[in-house]
Each structure stands twice: as C-alpha cells, then as structure tokens.
C-alpha cells in the first residue's frame, strides 16, 4: 500500500523536530530512512504508525487519509529496536497477540502463527519465553509478530542495531527476503548506510529533520546532492580537499599543488572556495591527475588494503587498492585522481 506524508510537522514542546516533510513510498517498495542519530527518523516512523500524533500535515495510506486514525486501527506492523517482546508471554502468545486482540478464532490463529513461524524460521521456538532466545531469534519473533496479521505497512526501527556483525549480515538478507516474499510496503529506519543500501529500493537520507535526498542507493552513491550525503554514503568514507578555483584548476589550500577540475562541474568564479570529494576507489596509482603525499596509515581488509595518504598541506586522501602491492607507512607516493569521478561542492555544501 502506498504511503504518503504531506507537509508532516512534529514538535516536542517548543522544538520542531520535523518541519514540512514530504515523502511518498510506492506500494510494495522498501524505503530506508537513513540519517545520523537524533535526526528524526524514529519520530517519523512513530508518526506513520500513529504512536505520535502529527502536529501538522497529512498521512495517507493508499488514498485514505489516516492522519487521525488511532494506531490500533492503522493496521501497521512495527519492529522496535529493542524488539519489545512481551516477557510474560511465550513466543507463540507473542506472535498470536495481534490476532487474539482482533478476536480471530483459535484455529485461524494457530494456522497463521505456524505459517509465519515457518516464514521466519522459528517453528521450534514457539514454547519458549523471549528471555530464553538469542538476539537474532528475538528479532525473528518481533518480525513474525509484526507480520502475522498481514499489515498494510511494515515499519522497522533500527532492527539490526542490537545484533552482532555476523547475525546482522544474515538478518539483512532475511528481512529483505521476507519483505519481497510478502510484497509489503516497508520503511526501514537505520543510521547504517550499508544496511540502507543493501536492503532497500530507495533511500531517503535525513539531516536535522529534513529529507536532503531521496533516491536509489546507486544513484545516491554516485550523485550525492550535497556534501552531507556524500560524506554519509560510502564505506570507507569519501575524503575532501579544500581549495580555490583558478581557471579550470583547483589550487589546494596552503599548498603549491593543484588539480584539474572536471568539465562536468559548473564552475564558480575564480578565487571562490570549493571542496572536492574523492572516493577511495578513485585515488589510484595509475590515474592521471597526480598528487604526492606520505602514507600515514594502512588498514588491511583482506582482499583490499586501505591507505591514508597525508598531503603536504595536511589534508588526507584515502585510497583503496587490491592487496599485493606492498607499501609501508612513511613511504612517499604519487598517485592520481580521475577528475571526471570527483564530486565538487560549494562552500555551503551544495553540489556543483
């Protein structure tokens, strides 16, 4: 079911956490709300499921205005960050709870619980209490409880934040599998860009209560709308070089070096400051626009190695290369940049 937020505003006391947000999620789509902690992701999610009242704007499910529909009647499934399982009920009762409230008959409940337990791979755990389960199992139970009454919308609030690395990887694909199998419209709240990119059809990246860019993962990585987005997307992260425009070159700050600028960039006037974003995979030994610096840090990641190269003005560029070319810390290197792959930002952070 399509979800649309129109001019959504939320205030806590005097502080407006969200102002005039607009967001539309297509039916069957999985959208990530991505942003740093405290930017208002959970607040948005809680407004969609009706736990928080909206202070302004409208919320539509399909074509129906549900702004003032209480959360009990919105038919949304929510997975909370700490799972919020009911400790006094066993797993079966936890999953059956939404159906029991809805007064389904015993037989229907039993069938549905078994079915959903199969889907999330926990049919053998139904007799246990939540406290007897591992984090990953609790996660699956929470998912089952959210899905069991076939909600119109599935909302996930940082569902993987409390899991260890291996489980996180497993549950990432698991949640996506279940979402695609059920074809449910889903919103995933996360602060982890890898999660957002790997699980979702589109990403809405948020900063201070605003959606700063809404796009597919690939597009957002390649065409970030602002310095903030560029800095948020990508692991290892992008590095930035400051300088001033000198005809078609960028003269690096406090440095004698300069770099040619791409012709794709709508250049500002000479003498204005500009910030260049260079992703680690675009700073390589054989690229044309050379820069010299000293290797200041090496991180071996197995298949690849990450180098920090400190330039003479103190700025740091990151380079990721396949391992096999041994370099040592302190080594002087002259590696190159592909000017067409660089991202240029104005002083206010907007993309040029």
């Amino acid at each position, binding site marked *: 079911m399509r979800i649309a937020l129109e001019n959504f505003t939320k205030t806590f006391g005097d502080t407006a956490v969200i102002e005039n947000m607009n967001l539309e999620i297509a039916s069957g789509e999985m959208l990530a709300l991505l942003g740093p902690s405290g930017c208002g992701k959970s607040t948005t999610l*809680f407004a969609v*499921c*009706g*736990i928080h009242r909206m202070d302004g704007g409208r919320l539509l499910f399909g074509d129906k205005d549900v702004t003032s529909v209480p*959360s*009990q*009647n*919105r038919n*949304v*499934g*929510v997975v*909370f*960050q*700490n799972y*919020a399982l*009911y*400790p*006094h009920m066993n797993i079966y009762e936890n999953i059956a*709870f*939404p159906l029991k*409230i*809805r007064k389904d008959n015993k037989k229907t409940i039993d069938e549905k619980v078994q079915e959903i337990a199969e889907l999330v791979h926990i049919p053998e755990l139904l007799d246990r209490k*939540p*406290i007897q389960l591992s984090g990953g199992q609790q996660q699956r139970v929470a998912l089952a*409880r959210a899905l069991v*009454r076939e909600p119109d919308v599935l909302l996930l609030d940082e569902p993987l934040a409390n899991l260890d690395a291996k489980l996180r990887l497993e549950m990432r694909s698991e949640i996506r599998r279940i979402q695609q199998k059920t074809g449910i419209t889903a919103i995933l709240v996360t602060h982890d860009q890898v999660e957002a990119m790997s699980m979702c059809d589109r990403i809405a990246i948020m900063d201070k209560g605003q959606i700063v860019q809404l796009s597919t993962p690939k597009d957002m990585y390649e065409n970030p709308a602002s310095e903030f987005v560029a800095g948020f997307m990508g692991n290892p992260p992008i590095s930035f070089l400051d300088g001033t425009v000198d005809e078609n070159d960028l003269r690096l700050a406090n440095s004698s070096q300069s770099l040619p600028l791409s012709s794709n960039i709508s250049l500002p006037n000479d003498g204005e400051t500009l910030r260049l974003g260079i992703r680690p995979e675009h700073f390589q030994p054989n690229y044309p626009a050379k820069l010299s610096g000293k290797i200041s840090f090496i991180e071996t990641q197995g298949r690849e190695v990450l180098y920090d190269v400190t330039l003479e003005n103190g700025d740091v560029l990151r380079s990721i290369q396949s391992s096999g070319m041994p370099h040592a810390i302190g080594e002087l290197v002259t590696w190159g940049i592909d000017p067409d792959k660089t991202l240029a930002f104005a002083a206010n952070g907007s993309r040029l």
Partner: protein
Amino acid sequence: MRRAHLLGLGFMAPALLIVCLFFLAPVIMTAVFSFTNMSSGTGISGGAYEVTEKTVRRLPEHGFPEAKAEMLAQDVYRIDPAGLTALGAGYGKALADEVGKSLSGKTFNGRRDLERALKKMKARPRSIREIKVAADLFKRSVLNTRYETEDAFVAAITDLDLKLDTSERALLSKVAYTGWTWTTENYELIATLPSTLRAAANTLTYVGFTLAFNVGFGLFLALATFYLPGAQAATFRAIWILPRILPPVIYIMMWKWLTWDTGFISSFLSNFDVTPRNWMLHSDINAWVSIVLINGFVGASLGMILFSSALRAIPSSMLYASEVDGASRLQQIWYIILPQLRWPILFTTAYQTLSLLTSFDYIYLSTDGGPGSSTEVWALYTFHTALNNYGGALQYGLGAALALVLVVIGIAASLVYLRLFNFDKLVAKPRIEQ
C-alpha cells in the same frame, strides 16, 4: 569457622539481638502468660486465701455443697481454750474461769447470743462495748479474713468443723485463692466465647475489605497517574500521599470532624433536609465504611507508589507495540501491564495482610470497636481484654492467649507468602525484563 563466617555473624548480631529482644522475648512471655488466669483481680504476683461473700456465692457453681457454703458465711462463736486464754489476758482470770466452767465447748450463731450469755457472768465487764469486744475474741468465722499461706487457711477451715472431705477442702482452697494460677482455660474460652467469634469475623471483614480497597484503589491511582501528563500525575500522587504523612491522631480528628452529627457531612446534608447524625457511628455499615476508607486512604498510597514505579519500569516500546498490535487502553492494561505488575501486587497484598491483621490504631482512634462491638477486630479485642476496658477488669491471661493466636496466624501467613513468592527467586532475578 572461617573468618568470613565470623564477619557475617558480626554483621547479623545486632539484628539477631533485636529479634530476640523485641520479637522472641515478648512472644515467649505472651505464651507463658496465656497459660495463666492473671487479671487485675489476681494481680501478677502471688495471692492469699480469703473467703468473701463472692466466694460463698461462687462455691456452689463449682460443685461445693450449698449448705456447707452457707455455713462458711455465718458468724460462728465457739468457746474454746484459745478464746478463753485471750479472754483471761484481757479481762482477768476470774471471767475466763467462769466462762470456761459454764460455756466451754458451746457454739453460738451470731454475736448477740454470746453477748446475752456473757451478761449473765458475775465477773462480766462493766460496759456493753467491752462485752462486745470480749465476745469477738470467740469469733471463729473465716469470712473476710486473709490467710497468707494455705496451711493457715486449712487450719482455720478445719477449726470451723464443717465436716469437709478432702476434695471439698481442696476445692475451697482453690476458689478462695486470690492469686493467679496455671490454666488452659483461656484457650477453651477463645474457642467457645461468642465475642471471640465476633472478633474473628470482624477481622476477616476488616482485612478483606481494606485490602481490596488498598490494592484496588492503589492500582487505580497508579494506572490513572501513569496515563496522565507528568506534572498533573505528580500533583495527584502527592495529594494521595498526604494521609500517610499526616499524624494518625490528627488524621482521625479530621475524619471525626467530617462525620460528627454537627460535622461537615451533616451540616452539608442538612441543606437537603437530611437529619444530622453521626456518620461514623450511626450504624454498623457506617462504621465499616468509615474504617475501610480511613485505613484505605492511608494504605492505598503505598500500593500507588509501588505500582507506579513498577509501571515506569515497563519499557515504553512494549506499550507502543501493544498499541500498534491493536490493543485498546483496557486491553493494554489487562494483557500487558497487569501481568507485569503481578509481583508488586502480590507483594503489596502479602505485606498489607500482615500489617492489617495486627493493626488497630486507626480503629481504636476512630470507632474504638463501636457501635457496640461491631467493628472490634481481633487485635483491638485483645487490647480491650488485656489492657483497656470500661469495666476495669483486665484479663491479662486471656489477652495474652488472644495475642498469641494472632502471632501464630501471622507467622503461618508469612510462611505461606514466602512460599508463594518463592522469595529466593524473587530477590535473585528482576521480574521485568527488556
């Protein structure tokens, strides 16, 4: 013994001392007293032997022959050697010899007969007054005479020549004894007296209703304030704690002021043509309602505080989850909140049962068991019996027995509750998990 054990014992020593001094010792003393018939009549030290009008009246009830009891009460004068010696010392040998010769061995019922006989003596004293005093020397009645030892008493009785057999004499000694004795009578009384039955029923009513009010109302207050905005909730809670921190005497004074026949309720209702009355003591129902409310408003705050903190320990996401799962407020309370308040509720119930069983302070201050004895609970009944009643006849022994019954019930209830709580488990693990 390891040092750690000694250290542990050292830490426990003050508590053990206090338990011994303020719990065990009183309980043992109570148990001892409960097997005596101590009362304000017997005193708590030893007694003497004395036949009084009351003894005479009570004797037949114990199976003592009525005729012999009557004789005990009579004024008997006998001319015996002891009397003659005394007479000789007081009024001269001449009179003593004369009386001895003519009257020796004779018995007179009442002083008047003896006086008449004495007046016939030649060596008789001059004045009538002296004759009366002389006659008293032959008085051989035991009535209203205190004998410090049983031997002296038995000697005096034997002197009376009532022809008592051994069992009758033993019975007489027992009834005439004014001190306390060992007995199991108190427990028989408790089992049979209608007033103890009444007190037991009253206690059930009191504990039952007050407990229900305390826990129910405490729960209601906690839930109500839980859903209220913060500042309002805090004010509300503070108001309900006021009765608890008010000194009991002042708190009860205010209740009395509220319910007197010239008090607030009466004055207010007189506007609606309701006859003024004492709203606390007008009827049994009035008294019970007052007592449950008086105790309840004080007790509910404890439950309210416990439940409120337990409520706030429930993660808010769990409540959100139940909301999006479709649960209404009532369903949320019923399915999510109450099950998680199970332990605080059980604890409050247990704790309050125990304290209500033994508490009578607010009842004592408000109705003092009235009207009649319709609100006299076991503890207050005990207090009245042993320590404070209008007649002034205080029955320490019976009171001690009553108190001991309460102690036994209290200990039994504690054991049941400890069992129910599985106390070790309760302390070991938090009951509200994430």
